[in-house]
């Protein structure tokens, strides 16, 4: 405290270290809020999953050297309430609908793909009630064909905080379907 420089820098330093304390408090309390509002066990229902298939030969649809690649796109219904994820340290929630499946020719290969996702930034948008929603992505596999796979769907979320660690979680309620080509009408 012996010179004006030093007084300024001690105040600055100390306020920064108490800033770290504040960050710890924010991270701790917001995590506690998530736990106490049962945010890690939100229920979900997924249904009415209908695939459509298309054959693509572009690199941007997974084709290498012009070999035909089977792409799949979905429509689905989804119901869930994610409002419990929103507290004072939530900047955004990224929700994504993923499917897990095994390889057909090589069963040792595990795959996880995203069919749909959404960025939610406010609490009032966090109640999802989707009917016949179109999937966002054309999805292809490492193998050329995608039909007749056993897909297990689940909804995951990633909470992006204003400060602190990123938090990941999953909703409760998985659905399995086998992808089959709908009969031609």
């Amino acid at each position: 405290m012996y010179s004006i420089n030093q007084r300024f820098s001690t105040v600055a330093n100390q306020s920064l270290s108490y800033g770290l304390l504040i960050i710890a408090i924010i991270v701790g309390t917001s995590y506690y809020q998530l736990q106490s509002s049962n945010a890690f066990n939100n229920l979900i229902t997924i249904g009415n999953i209908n695939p459509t298939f298309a054959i693509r030969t572009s690199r941007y649809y997974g084709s290498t050297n012009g070999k035909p690649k089977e792409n799949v796109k979905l429509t689905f219904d989804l119901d869930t309430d994610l409002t419990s994820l929103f507290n004072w340290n939530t900047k955004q929630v990224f929700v994504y609908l993923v499917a897990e499946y095994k390889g057909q020719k090589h069963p040792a290969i595990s795959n996880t793909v995203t069919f749909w996702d959404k960025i939610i930034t406010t609490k009032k948008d966090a109640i999802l009630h989707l009917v016949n929603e179109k999937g966002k992505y054309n999805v292809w596999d490492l193998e050329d064909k995608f039909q007749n796979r056993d897909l297990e769907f689940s909804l995951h979320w990633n909470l992006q905080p204003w400060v602190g660690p990123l938090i990941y979680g999953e909703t409760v309620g998985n659905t399995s379907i086998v992808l089959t080509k709908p009969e031609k009408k």
Partner: protein
Amino acid sequence: MNLRLELTKLLNLCFVLSSTFMMWKGLSIFANSHSPIVVVLSGSMEPAFQRGDILFLWNRNVESKVGDIVVYEVEGKPIPIVHRVLREHHSEKTNKQFLLTKGDNNAGNDIPLYANRKVYLQKDKDIVGTVKGYFPLLGYVTIWVTENKYAKFALLGFLGLSSLLGDE
């Protein structure tokens, strides 16, 4: 002999520089990533990450999960990219994992960004780290200094002045 005195004074400066650098190296080794702390430079992950936000990376995980935000490097491009994993394919026999990524704020996936007409990234080769922690805005200082020449002069001037007036 004043040589020792001068050497001791120089040593203090040397300690400041070397301990900062070695701390950074230690952190790199701990996180197994050559840059464990990165500053976001593009808006492709908005609104999650804006320019100037600071990200803390971890690279000791063997596999990435879908939804993870990863930092990867593309051959021939100087700036690492921060994007989210859209798909992953891994074999239980070999430890190879293929990843497809996409920026939250981009319309399409990252295939046009990958080098050598590749369709996937490889976890062990291309990934610098997975984002684990976040601190907003603080990195804007470094962006400001690297991109604005007046800022560089201002910073240098400020440092020079404070070393002249200050108590070393």
